[in-house]
């Protein structure tokens, strides 16, 4: 039996920026005498070149070294290896990297750099406390009608400049992962504090709302055919420059004119004098979006996500062209919601069951494809042999095979039904889908050889989450020993790739599904070193003196070791953490959702990995 790993409060970075001359900045910071440290024989690698260090201060057992390329904290007696040397850099921690002076402030530190002053406090923060800090930030800043992706800022690092609107292509998927984390939180609160404790009640409220936001995407379009929208926007929001969108008017939805819909053709109709000579959209030509039925009812409790904010369905436009990523995460959240929220909320559970069945039926009846209003499959939601036989589908086939198998198992699990679902599942098995699910890395290696690149250059980091979810679901829902072994083999084939990240969001499901050992100390490090904010303020992995760069065959550059979360760029579960780059994945103008942390942390608590 696995003993839970005991998480303890760990020092977190609280960095406050000040302008030069701010009255809060002590005058002594401008007069302090700086002496370069003698680092001869220093026993560990330093983030800056030794010659670049210009000043240092000792605060208790900690020495801070300022350099022309950042700030280093050295605590030789630190309890954890990863905390002995820590690096602070612009723009997330400092205003720039040229440190001019350091001044102790009790256990904290004033740092003067060329363009301003930063106050740094290392304050112990518990893992749960961090989850709540991050959740609060997301609820305050990121939440958009219950969806949690990210929020863009007009001015870098200025939270007050955030746009009131803005969506993500993957609102559904990201929100589903957020919802799952909150469901686990609710379950933990319920188990530990009882059903009526305020924390439990609040956790349930947040989890339920997130679940409803996801389910709404399965109904908002009014198509009534099990389709799922990627996301939606309210009437007053500007239409993005590109993508496939339908605006709701009464019982109808009309496709909007965008380059993407023009390119796809079948979404629009052209009217004009001479279509044969000018199809470029010139003034003689009018484009009219196809109109489709949108009269299917939407469960009222789901609509509250919109109506509670004073909006109505009218004029809302949703994004179609949904991908398999979204579908996979929707199924995950439906399974977890059924398990955790369902027992005490039969109404919600019924919506989940109906939604899952409708979606599954759509996929099966369309030949294992998710189809747009035109009847054609969306660009990326294809699990059919027809797609697998294409050049692009050849690479996607193995992961997609696992995905679609997992959908079947989830629907059967949620509904308790077999019938058509089992029949379809058996059909896919007879077509070799379970075997196919084990071959992802064979094909990836083949493609890498073909393209003359290193296999790691071909890793789609977003696929990690999808593979984890698919195999986690399959391994925990399949009872047939032979199939279960295949699914475990499939999951294990991803191990080397997943292990690049040491992410509990991946490794915990892996351990649950396969029973294999994982490195819990690294799981803890991942949590401990997560920033207390998801503000993507930019931090560079480039030019660190302690960080080798790896140049791959295809010309991609990576860093050679996995930097702790608070020293690398902020992203969702979809980026290469080894990227050699100097900005966060969202640039410096966004605040990301907390789900990357809360999903992993609460899952660990729920399944007893952490205490």
């Amino acid at each position: 039996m696995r003993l839970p790993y005991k998480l303890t409060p760990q020092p977190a970075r609280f960095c406050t920026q000040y302008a030069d001359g701010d009255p809060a900045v002590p005058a002594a910071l401008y007069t302090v005498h700086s002496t370069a440290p003698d680092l001869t024989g220093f026993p560990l690698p330093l983030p800056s070149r030794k010659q670049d260090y210009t000043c240092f201060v000792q605060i208790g057992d900690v020495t801070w070294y300022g350099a022309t390329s950042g700030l280093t904290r050295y605590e030789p007696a630190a309890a954890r290896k990863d905390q002995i040397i820590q690096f602070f850099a612009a723009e997330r921690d400092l205003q720039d990297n040229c440190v001019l002076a350091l001044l102790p402030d009790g256990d904290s530190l004033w740092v003067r750099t060329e363009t301003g002053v930063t106050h740094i406090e290392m304050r112990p923060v518990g893992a749960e406390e961090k989850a709540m800090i991050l959740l609060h930030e997301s609820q305050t800043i990121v939440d958009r009608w219950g969806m949690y992706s990210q929020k863009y800022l007009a001015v870098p690092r200025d939270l007050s400049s955030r746009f009131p609107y803005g969506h993500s292509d993957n609102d559904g998927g990201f929100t589903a992962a957020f919802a799952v984390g909150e469901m686990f939180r609710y379950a933990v609160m319920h188990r530990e504090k009882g059903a009526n404790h305020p924390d439990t009640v609040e956790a349930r409220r947040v989890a339920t709302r997130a679940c409803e936001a996801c389910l709404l995407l399965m109904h908002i379009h009014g198509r009534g055919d099990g389709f799922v929208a990627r996301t939606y926007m309210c009437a007053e929001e500007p239409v993005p420059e590109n993508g496939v969108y339908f605006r709701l008017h009464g019982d109808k939805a009309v496709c909007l004119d965008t380059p993407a819909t023009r390119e796809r053709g079948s979404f629009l109709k052209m009217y004009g004098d001479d279509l044969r000579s000018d199809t470029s959209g010139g003034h003689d030509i009018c484009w009219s979006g196809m109109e489709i039925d949108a009269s299917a009812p939407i469960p009222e409790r789901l609509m509250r996500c919109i109506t509670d904010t004073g909006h109505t369905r009218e004029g809302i436009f949703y994004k179609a062209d949904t991908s398999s990523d979204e579908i996979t995460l929707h199924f995950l959240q439906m399974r977890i919601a059924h398990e955790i929220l369902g027992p005490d909320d039969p109404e919600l559970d019924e919506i989940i069951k109906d939604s899952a069945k409708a979606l599954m039926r759509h996929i099966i009846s369309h030949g294992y494809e998710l189809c747009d209003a035109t009847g054609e499959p969306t660009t990326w939601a294809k699990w059919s042999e027809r797609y697998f036989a294409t050049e692009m589908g050849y690479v996607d086939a193995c992961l997609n095979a696992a995905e679609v198998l997992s959908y079947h198992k989830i629907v059967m699990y949620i509904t308790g039904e077999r019938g058509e679902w089992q029949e379809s599942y058996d059909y896919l098995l007879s077509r070799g889908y379970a075997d196919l699910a084990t071959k992802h890395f064979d094909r990836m290696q083949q493609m890498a050889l073909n393209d003359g690149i290193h296999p790691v250059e071909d890793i789609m980091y977003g696929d990690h989450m999808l593979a984890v979810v698919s195999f986690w679901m399959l391994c925990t829902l399949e009872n047939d020993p032979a199939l279960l072994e295949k699914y475990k083999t499939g999951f294990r084939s991803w191990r080397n790739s997943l292990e690049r990240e040491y992410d509990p969001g991946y490794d915990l499901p892996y351990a649950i599904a396969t029973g294999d050992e994982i490195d819990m100390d690294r799981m803890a490090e991942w949590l401990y070193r997560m920033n207390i904010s998801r503000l993507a303020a930019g931090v560079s992995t480039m030019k660190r003196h302690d960080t080798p760069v790896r140049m791959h065959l295809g010309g991609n550059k990576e860093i050679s070791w996995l930097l702790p979360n608070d020293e690398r760029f902020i992203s969702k579960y979809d980026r290469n953490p080894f990227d050699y780059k100097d900005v966060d994945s969202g640039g410096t103008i966004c605040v990301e959702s907390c789900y990357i942390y809360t999903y992993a942390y609460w899952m660990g608590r729920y399944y007893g990995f952490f205490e």
Partner: protein
Amino acid sequence: MQNQYQIHFVGNAHLDPIWLWRWQEGCGEVLQTFRSAIDRLKEFDDFIFTCSSAAYYDWVEQIDPELFSEIRDMVKKGRWVPVGGWWVQPDCNMPSGESFARHALYSQLYYFKKFGRICKTGYNVDSFGHCGNLPQLLTNSGMRTYVMMRPGMHENPDIPEKLFWWDGVDGSRVLTYRLSDGYGHTGTQNIAYELDKIGAMLPEKQHDLMLFGGVGNHGGGPTRGDLAFLAHRMEEKKDEALVFSSPDAYFERICGGYLDVPHWQGELQHHASGCYSATSLVKQLNRRAENRLAAAEMWDTVSAAVCGTEPSTEALAEAWRDVCFNQFHDILCGCSIVEAYEDVKNSAGHAITIADRIENAAQLRLISRINTWLDGINEPVTLLRHHCRKDNFPRPVVVFNPHGFAVRCPVRTNYPSSAVKDCAGKDVIFQNVRSSRSNDSHLDTLFIADVPALGYAVYWLSWMQDADVTADCFRAVEKEYGTDVRAGKYFLENEHIRAEFDEATGTICSLITKADGYDLAAGGRLAVPTVIDDHTTDTWAHNVFKFETVKGEMTLESLELVEYGPARAVIRTRHRFGESHLTQDFILSSGAKALRVKCRAIWQEPFTMLKSTFGLTGTDAINTYEIPGAFIKRPTNGEEEPMIGWADLTLTGTDGARHGLAVLTDSKYSCDCPGNTLRPTLLRNVIFADHYSNRPAADFRYTDEGMQLFEYAILPHAGEAETTDAPQEAAVLCRRPNVVPAGYHKGALPQMQSFLTVTEPNISVTAFKKCEDGSGDFILRAYETAGRSVGRVGFVCDLADAGFWADFHAHEVKTFRIGREGFVTETDFLEGIIQ
């Protein structure tokens, strides 16, 4: 209808530069074959010739530049395809991981320089087995596809036939083609038969297949008749889709289509199980040369940085190329003619001499910069020890540690001493031991040195005045040294282990690890010199995978405690079997975790093997063997297995806990383990180059005949093998810190210095050198030894202005290039020279 799957005819000539002939003949064979291949290429427009081994191209370039120029033109046209970016087709079980790096480095750079391209396909069609780390060694060499042949289908039918994904112990993967039908088809009937056979396989395999053809072994290549036949057949049977091709073209086409092939995880064994013990001479020279060169190169690099001298890059490359050449499978496997080993001795000696010269120069340069001045010494530096002796000044010696980890071990230097102190003035455990000299005192000083990683430490030895020179080696244990060494007539003991010897047999009857009090020998005996009957096999031991017939145990002739002092105690056993003798000195030093066994054998038992057997008691036994740059687990099924520095048997003991015993060797490469008995092979006496022969009456020469000197060590432990210090202990056994007497002088360097820090014990540094491109950049290579991923490994090297972190996966090898201002690039064996 045209067949969608092609048959790729790969024209080649298998060339053994040494086998049943010496290298001079092999060289001639290469020249003739290359000439012939060029002629055939001119005669047949579509024909493509494939050839491996940079050493052959180097020969041709030097001896026949015109021919080389023609080859270069053909390479440019894609008609001549160099494959196998290594110096030769080496044995793929016995060279160290670092040797494979050198194969790639010197060969791929050669190909790049001469042909503007490197080899994409690994190619060892004749090598006798392929270790489980080869995929990683290949990919680090710039090759992600591989062609091999042995073991044949009859030897191991479990390995997929033809095309498969081969996953190494670290997870590296190469797309591998197994030639199940030979590499040298020739003659029209034979080729036609093979084409029909391989054609019949296409529907089942569902992908292209290759057929290798050309006169081989002693060179040759496809004949004019073969090529005419093939050209005609291509014309005549268009639906067969037969094409002249190369492995590169084959893999390129394969990867462009639908591919669903089986997997293989781990090693590709066994073909010639006797090859890992045949001809100890070449194996010992190989191990010695590998280690001497690596150490010499490290000190040369340190010296270049500290003293500003030019690095000996080209001289080292020349020596490494000799080592690589002697790793050719028929050479290192000990199955060539006896005359060839005279050449091998010479070239290995050449390499070792280069190493020794470079190391000596580097260390003396460094010593000259260490401050060893003592107040009161007035003589010029040149008048050193002898004059100081009478004035009772201690003499300085410098101990150099060539490892990336700190070492505490016994070292030895000339002349006896009355005291030994470290550079902080602290007394050091020492004793005076018998020297190999027959004059003066007959004594040397042996002391326990502590030396930092890739560093040195000065020790001060006080002269022993002549009047005090006695049989000091038997000096009683002195309390003031606080030594842990204890010994009696039948036992040796220190803080870690206690070994008891059986009076009747001279074997170990009790071996206790003090950490847990467990006796590994309970219920059995250890270090039993056992003679195996080997008269039914040839040199390779073709078709024999187990050596089970015991002729008998060697008989004990004497057992005595020959040394007992604070630094070490030694029990010597002498055994006899027929006309053969074995003397073993069991040496236990202060603080040692392993019991060292220094062996001298006079062997003259034809058709025998000598094994030392270690029978343990327990269940759930598993073997662990060091392989090139990694280790591998194997079942205890009694098959003779290749190993490098150590082999281990671990099992669940009678107390229910896991215990084990590793045997480390300085020169041996073969071991088996039937059940719970680990049996490293110490000697093998068979006829040289006996290839399936019927042994006509003749005055044959036998391998391992006569005097044999070697060492092994016994490392008992708790827990699994990978949790022990076996890799480090084996490394120290093979590459020992050396002691260099110093003079008295002032200098800028302190008396103890480390030039490299590595923060994790399971990361082993195998190379610290200058980049081959002359840029002045440093190259640092290291690999993970415990089979577990480790994050945040710190490397600090002030010499290179560098300090950096890296993550290592289990068994992963990494090469770092440290550039100007200490910025680091992670690269591969090719050092980032080829972009």
